[in-house]
């Protein structure tokens, strides 16, 4: 057997590090989900109904075009964030 073979070892430091990463991941995902929800709920406020853009009520434009594009943007950011956090995680060997 090769001497270079790495045997996974347990340490409290590693464990706490993993817990920290897990908390960080959970927090960032929650934040992204909250943002995504906000984009859907925001145009329900009456202020959005009073203005027209391109012949469409701003609330409708926001719900059908601007909002989904915002969500796409948030998703792009969330993917980068998740990857960065996952790369530090010793538990996720597949990444």
């Amino acid at each position, binding site marked *: 057997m090769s001497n270079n073979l790495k045997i996974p070892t347990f340490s409290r430091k590693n464990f706490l590090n993993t817990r920290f990463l897990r908390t960080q991941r959970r927090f960032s995902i929650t934040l992204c*989900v909250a943002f995504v929800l906000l984009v*859907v709920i925001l145009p329900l406020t009456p202020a959005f109904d009073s203005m027209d853009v391109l012949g469409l009520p701003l609330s409708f434009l926001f719900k059908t075009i601007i*909002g989904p*594009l915002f969500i796409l943007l948030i998703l792009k950011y*969330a993917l980068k964030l998740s990857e960065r956090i996952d790369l530090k995680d010793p538990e996720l060997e*597949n990444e």
Partner: protein
Amino acid sequence: MQDTPLKSYASKSSIHFIFFLACIVFGFLLTQVGIPDIFINFLMLAVLIGGYIFAGILGRTMQLDAFQTAGRSATPTVAAQAIASGILSYSVFILLAGEFYNTGTDALVIFSGIVLGIAFMTLLFAAPFNRSRAVSLGDTLTPGSTSMLVKLMVMLMVVITGVLLLVFQLSMIGKIASGYFGIAENIALSVTLFTIGFCLLMGGLQSLSIARIFAYPVLVVALLGPLCWVSYQLTGNPVPQLSMGNGALAQIEEINREMLEEGFATQNDILEFTREGTALDGFNYLTSLLAVAFGIAAMPHLLQHHKTLPNPRAARKAGFWSLGLVLVVLTAIPALAAYMKLDIYTSLLGLQVSDLEDQAPWLFALSNQEGIGLITLCGAYVASGADVITACGAGGEYFISLRDIKIHSEFVVPTFAALNELPALVTLVVATGCLFALWSTIDGLVYVISNTIVQDGFKSVLRRKSPSSFTLFVTRLAIIALLLATPYLMGIFTFDMKLAFEAAIALIAACLFPFLLLRFWYKSVPNSAILFGMITGFIITSTLLWLGNFGVDMLAGSGDEIRISIPAITDAISNLSSGIVGCLAMLMVSFLVHRIILRGNTSKIDKTITDMKSDVPA
């Protein structure tokens, strides 16, 4: 070693797309020569049937790994197209435009729910679902041989919701085939089941992914092609999303104002679909939207595509791209409703009944209960001016007003081209797109139901150590059995199609979504707690659905239906909202049982450390 066809998908997808375009051009030439319509109909059907046969042959395999996960060889763009085609089903591709037309902003529940759902699926489930090496939802959620009851409960949920969605999609096949292609409903259904069956039996998820890749460009061309053309013709702007406001809605508002002034309509008859809805209050709007989002995020036939990717990073990318691809079609759907409305307004409103046969002959072709039932006048399908006179109870000088016209949502998209006086071939192309949308959802549902029954039922309960060749054989057998049982299932589930869709979404939101959330993000909740939660969520949601739609006597529309109200919040909980009530109940019961079970145990960290230490090899 077999090739992995998903890696070189671009060339195959291009071949199919070129074949599709060639069929359109050839069809156009045949119409110029005067060849009978039936041959052109078959030509367009060849795109659909040929695509599935081609996908089946390309993805053929005798390896279980390739059959169940495509050997994890897909690229993010492949999985993204497959997920997008799966989402663009009956309710999105065919029904949604009509729902915008008829219910206004209430249709945003489905629109925004889909966008949110894909975002949730990508953020919450794509990576952990891909990370698991299991091949079914039950196995992924309850790895190993433990928690048999939970696994069976998951299987039950996948089968119930899958069958509801399957029957609901299949029931539309016959209508499109008979209305637009002149093919009898039972023949259309048989061809559908045979072709999809061939594709799935040859290569399982691998062939299914290829077929869905073929479907996506066809769906885009079929929907956006005519819509962009109409938008360009009317406004000079080929982007319907941007032109609909000034190009259609402004004119509709002008006509509405004129009708009000002339006394042809009251304020109640007019629905400005970008500003108001018809039925949902604030509570039901938000909860229904969340239910659709949760339902889409946890839909097994969409989630399974994340298993075809090599790593979680690719799974996340696929989710991101799938949202982009869905938005290409989804954002255009309100515009289609707007241009459809403008067309109905300008070609029908204000005409006298005696003028209908001369000035709107299309009306009688599109008001056929047995074929294309787009429109009813005064509550009846009409085949002639005399029928209109009978239905409206007035003479030939009667003016058609807004309240006399009813549009049926499911025919809005396939009839759009005909109403805008585009060539008949364009209507056939759109109808082909509609069939592709239905097929590209049915295939995934058939596969996921069969695979779940085999993996979570047969393999977990009866033969845990069955060899891969035998498992592959049994999975193929299950697909055949399900396809043969489908006509029988369609005979049992005969209720309203919209109800089937809402019930399936509500049950997924109530049971599968919270389970996935707990398993991937709150791993400390034990399976026993989740089982209690799932049973509670299922019972509450199905009871609300049952009471609200069938009542105590189990008959729909008998008048004894009971809609549960929440004082000061809502008068009646809608079908979709019942999924959120069930979801909350599921989470509450799971956490409650979890606290009771864990009470008195050692601290969680110490327990976990002990578990981890025992896992480290000596």
